[in-house]
């Protein structure tokens, strides 16, 4: 039995959509739910879920694409490192096309930099083993799902005694921006579809403050179409009942406490710091940097390099999009100056980016 396939059952999905339509039929104002996870963004577009929902339900995307929220300065440092002749940059594929201030990894690779796409940070560790005369840097970008895998790679490298494996870390944690967005008066989020895999690590309890402090309903939701629609249905029900609590739709994977081993490894390797979110700004305690005791693995500390002065891209509404304030279709550059093959903003780059998903699937 493949569970995946059954959570894509057309009849179940149709039934859920019908139920949501029935439940919201009487509403005069639409309900606005935000997903804050790139995989949700993808699933919603890829399965055309918006076309199944009534106009009374609006789904908007928050700052859930790790590449999109990574600030320009990080990328510029990665580019500077890639230009060192003894450096191999390893990264998930999505980073390649992201424009920095004046270049991109794809461009540096074309000019001769050794940039390799891997599927796991452990592949990068293998590359470090096979290339002892090179310094191998993994671009550690992502939320609480990815951060433990990177921490794991550092622990592996340490165990193997490698001195040529490094991570350029720009990890972010999810709850903080959700708090900020909840407090934003310009935005009225009627509920969060909380991320599936991030929650597998941090647990459902992490969202309680959103209900308690901001009165926003939260449902930890899986990635399959039936999951997403059930998550929406649960949010609708809370809203109609005037409730604001954390529910776990994705209970087959997510617990209230999360994954304690992964949390321990995160705490071992990383320390929280005030991270800069592209388009949102610096949020206190919203990022993870490499802890002092693992400084030897920190590319930023271990490999000093001159980084070019920052240059932001003009006209890009990424910031507003990451906050859910505007939709990609509102951006005058969308599909014109800004396309996935030559992106202006980061939201157009990652396949999980709101603009990219809208471009690829949304028309």
């Amino acid at each position: 039995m493949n569970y995946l396939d059954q959570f894509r059952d057309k009849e179940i999905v149709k039934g859920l959509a019908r139920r949501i339509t029935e439940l919201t039929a009487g509403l005069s104002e639409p309900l606005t739910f935000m997903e804050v996870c790139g995989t949700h963004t993808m699933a919603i577009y890829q399965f055309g879920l918006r076309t199944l929902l009534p106009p009374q339900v609006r789904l908007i995307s928050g700052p859930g694409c790790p590449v999109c929220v990574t600030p320009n300065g990080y990328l510029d440092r990665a580019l500077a490192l890639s230009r060192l002749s003894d450096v191999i940059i390893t990264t998930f594929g999505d980073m390649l096309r992201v424009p920095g201030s004046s270049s991109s990894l794809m461009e540096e690779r074309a000019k001769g930099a050794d940039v390799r796409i891997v599927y796991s940070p452990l592949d990068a560790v293998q590359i470090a083993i096979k290339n002892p005369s090179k310094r191998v840097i993994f671009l550690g970008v992502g939320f609480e799902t990815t951060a433990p895998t990177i921490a794991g790679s550092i622990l592996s490298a340490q165990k193997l005694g490698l001195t040529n494996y490094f991570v350029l870390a720009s990890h972010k944690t999810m709850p903080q921006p959700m708090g900020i967005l909840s407090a934003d008066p310009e935005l009225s989020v009627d509920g969060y579809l909380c991320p599936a895999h991030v929650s597998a690590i941090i647990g459902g309890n992490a969202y309680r403050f959103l209900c308690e402090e901001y009165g926003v309903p939260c449902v930890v939701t899986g990635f399959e179409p039936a999951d997403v629609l059930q998550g929406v249905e649960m949010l609708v029900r809370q809203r109609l009942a005037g409730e604001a609590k954390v529910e776990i739709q994705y209970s087959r994977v997510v617990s209230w406490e999360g994954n304690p081993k992964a949390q321990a490894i995160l705490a071992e390797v990383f320390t929280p710091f005030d991270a800069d979110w592209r388009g949102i700004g610096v949020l206190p305690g919203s990022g993870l940097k490499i802890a002092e005791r693992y400084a030897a693995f920190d590319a930023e500390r271990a490999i000093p390099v001159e980084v070019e002065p920052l240059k932001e891209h003009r006209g890009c509404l990424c910031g507003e999009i990451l906050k859910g304030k505007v939709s990609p279709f509102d951006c005058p550059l969308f599909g014109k100056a800004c396309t996935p093959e030559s992106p202006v903003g980061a939201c157009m780059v990652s396949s999980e980016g709101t603009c990219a998903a809208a471009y690829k699937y949304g028309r």
Partner: protein
Amino acid sequence: MQVISIDGDQAVAEVDGVKREASLMLLNDEVTVGDFVIVHAGFAISKLDEEDARETLALMREVFTPESMG
């Protein structure tokens, strides 16, 4: 993905007949062969509770399919 073999911290997991290695480093030793796990970037990050999945599906099917919704 379903775990089909385990060797220390490394497992082989399978989906749709496709096998790939996955590290078990982020899970306590609770995983055994036959378990379903969520694999992210080469690491198993969570077990999938089969029982729960079956219940969720049964419930969905009961509550939301056309027959049930009549």
